[in-house]
């Protein structure tokens, strides 16, 4: 047993740190460190910078042009990116669909789609949830009917994150209603510029349009865009979910945000308030415990000789912690988190002449996004399999 990373792992961390700190544009890091609004261009700029280094697909094996990193190296890479203030990699292409294409796609699909994902050129979206299929994903109804060398897709997807920017979308579509719901699902890649695709942003409680509805009205999709076999899509989706879960705890980002919470607490005068400070201390302990749990999972992956049944807990705890730091940041500012000035969450905002406001009415401009972030992060215990679904899974493992 050893808590310290090996000298090799430590050296790897140093190399990644040096590179990330050199190449991450300062304006982007500033926005991330202050929870200011990121544009499509910000996110894609960073994706392309990573792509140029071959690190956008940081989890990819070497045979597909990835770095072939170990689980620990991937963790260290994500940690260094998070601590430096890099935007989170938009996962739908490099983290989600790419592994499915590698594992189940044809060589033609691999050659066609993987390069654009690796470079950050092509923006992918995820078409999983539907109005009637949230946690119960296997009940998807969006139809794909085979007509000659095409599928004709009709139906609706929803909660499509950043789908307004999407160029391609991978979808779970129903190709059969025979048997169990899981056995009639296929995994289809759809060009979002196809006639019949409509994207409508959904305004969320924080005023942002982070997610979208996507409609398919007789959309023609070439049959060659089917990944793997027809009606086997559920297996591929489960494979993808396994990949999605590796960094689901997001502990690296929580470490960065804990530092921000401490900055806010100092600026707002509650750092010396024992009652408030204890709450920060409690969160710090929670984050250390979560990090230790993440490291235990990584260690088990590294050695491969013990199976660990705690990965499901990471999502629950990680999401609760994200909500807690956002809550404490907001509470630190108290009433000064309450002014809602949408534009003040843009970098460089200097008041609004039309409103006759020259400075943020919440005192410190850093307070502008606090309540919005708090509201926004309520999603974390809902998405990716709600925490209640996760508890079902955890108890199922224990009780059989």
């Amino acid at each position, binding site marked *: 047993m050893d808590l310290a990373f090996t000298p090799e792992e430590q050296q790897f961390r140093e190399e990644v740190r040096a590179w990330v700190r050199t190449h991450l544009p300062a304006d982007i890091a500033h926005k991330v460190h202050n929870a200011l609004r990121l544009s499509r261009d910000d996110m894609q700029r960073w994706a392309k910078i990573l792509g140029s280094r071959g690190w956008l697909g940081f989890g990819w094996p070497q045979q597909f042009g990835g770095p072939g990193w170990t689980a620990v190296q991937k963790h260290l890479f994500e940690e260094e990116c998070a601590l430096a203030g890099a935007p989170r990699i938009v996962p739908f292409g490099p983290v989600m669909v790419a592994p499915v294409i590698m594992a189940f796609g044809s060589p033609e699909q691999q050659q066609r789609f993987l390069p654009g994902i690796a470079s950050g050129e092509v923006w992918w979206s995820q078409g999983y949830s539907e109005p009637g299929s949230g946690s119960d994903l296997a009940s998807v109804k969006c139809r794909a009917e085979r007509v000659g060398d095409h599928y004709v897709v009709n139906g609706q997807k929803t909660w499509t994150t950043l789908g307004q920017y999407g160029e391609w979308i991978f979808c779970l579509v129903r190709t059969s209603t025979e048997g169990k719901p899981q056995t009639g699902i296929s995994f289809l890649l759809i060009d979002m510029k196809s006639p019949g695709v409509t994207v409508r942003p959904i305004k969320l409680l924080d005023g942002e349009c982070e997610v979208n509805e996507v409609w398919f009205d007789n959309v023609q999709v070439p049959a060659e865009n089917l990944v793997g076999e027809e009606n086997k899509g559920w297996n591929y989706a489960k494979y993808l979910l396994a990949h999605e879960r590796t960094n689901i705890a997001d502990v690296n980002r929580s470490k960065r945000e804990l530092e921000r919470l*401490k900055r806010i607490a100092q600026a707002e005068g509650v750092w010396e308030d024992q009652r408030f400070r204890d709450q*920060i*201390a409690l969160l710090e302990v929670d984050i250390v415990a979560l990090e230790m749990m993440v490291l235990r999972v990584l*260690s088990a992956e590294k050695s491969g000789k013990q199976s660990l049944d705690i990965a499901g807990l990471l999502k629950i705890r990680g999401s609760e912690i994200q909500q807690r730091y956002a809550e404490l940041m907001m509470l630190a500012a108290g009433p000064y988190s309450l002014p809602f000035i949408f534009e003040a969450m843009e970098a460089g905002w200097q008041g609004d002449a039309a409103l006759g406001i020259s400075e943020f009415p919440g005192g410190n401009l850093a307070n502008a996004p606090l309540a919005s972030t708090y509201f926004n992060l309520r999603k974390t215990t809902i998405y990716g399999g709600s925490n209640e679904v996760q508890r079902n899974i955890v108890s199922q493992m224990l009780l059989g």
Partner: protein
Amino acid sequence: MNFDFSDDQLQLRDAVARWVDKAYTFERRRAITQAGGFDATACTELAELGLTGLVTPEDHGGMAMGAVETMVVMEELGRGLVLEPLAQTLVASTVLSHTAPAPLQAEWLPRMASGEALVVLAHQERKARYRLEKCESKATLTLDGWTVSATKNMVPAGDKATAWIVPAMVADATSGSERMALFLVERGAPGAQAAGHLTQDGGRAATVTLDNTPATLVTLNGLAAMELAVDVGLAALCAEAVGVMDKTVALTVEYMNTRKQFGVFIASFQALRHRLADMKMQLELARSMSYYATLKLNAPAAERRLATARAKVQLGQSIRFVGQQAVQLHGGIGVTDEYIVSHCFKKLTQLEMTFGDTLHHLGQVSEGMQETAGVFA
């Protein structure tokens, strides 16, 4: 970074687990409590397994193992709800081998390792609660050597121990103020008394009173030595609590899969399933922090102190939740003396208040909190 146990460590775990399963049954434990909460035979059996010499240097007859082995052993003793205070032997051995003069080490460490002598910490004072620096006991240097006057409560198996390790204040000639020193006091020494009693977990403790009792100086650097002692004790306690919680969760799983109400196993009720998932969460967070405390024991003192405080904040919360919810999920049988789960609950409760509770350690973490988060591990 690696949390695998070595083959030797796994063998050690198996050996202790086998002893617990075969020799330390619930019936035997009940009998020990009825007989006063301490069994010298069980102590001998622990010694025969080599556990009393686990961390003692080899030249003093020990196995010279480390914190990870201690964790492994304590987890299994926790699983068995073992009452005899092995952790105290490990704490005392560590403190003596780190801080005592060589002759004192040579005199005591081999006897402690063989199980011939039981040495325990006697530090709890009425007005100090969990604060180590608060100490009203006095030590005086006379022509015949040191004497100590003190009243110490909740001394584990205090009236059965061979000797106690006692912190007391001494006059510091150079500064004119007082400083804490650590002494070894034999139970049979003149002026020493120990009034034993049961504790809530079914074990034994004593109030020790010393009245100008002859004592042997362990170290004049008493506070640092006490901090080391308590940190070693905390790491051992965390592991023990993980063992108890592991057992408690397993008992609860078994009960949910056998108890029927409304014609179905109660394991089918989602309200109960989610509670169990939350118990598993608290158990694994606790286990993670038990590893953390253990692996930080060799860090510089300030870092070590922070780590054990953080660990106890997590453990304290986990202990409370797992214990209370296990009783709740068991229903009526959970509040009986007959069934084991109430004994797990009481053991956990006692561990929560040993070496500082959650609020105490949260205070420590909060007080020493840095402005940056940094990298923890």
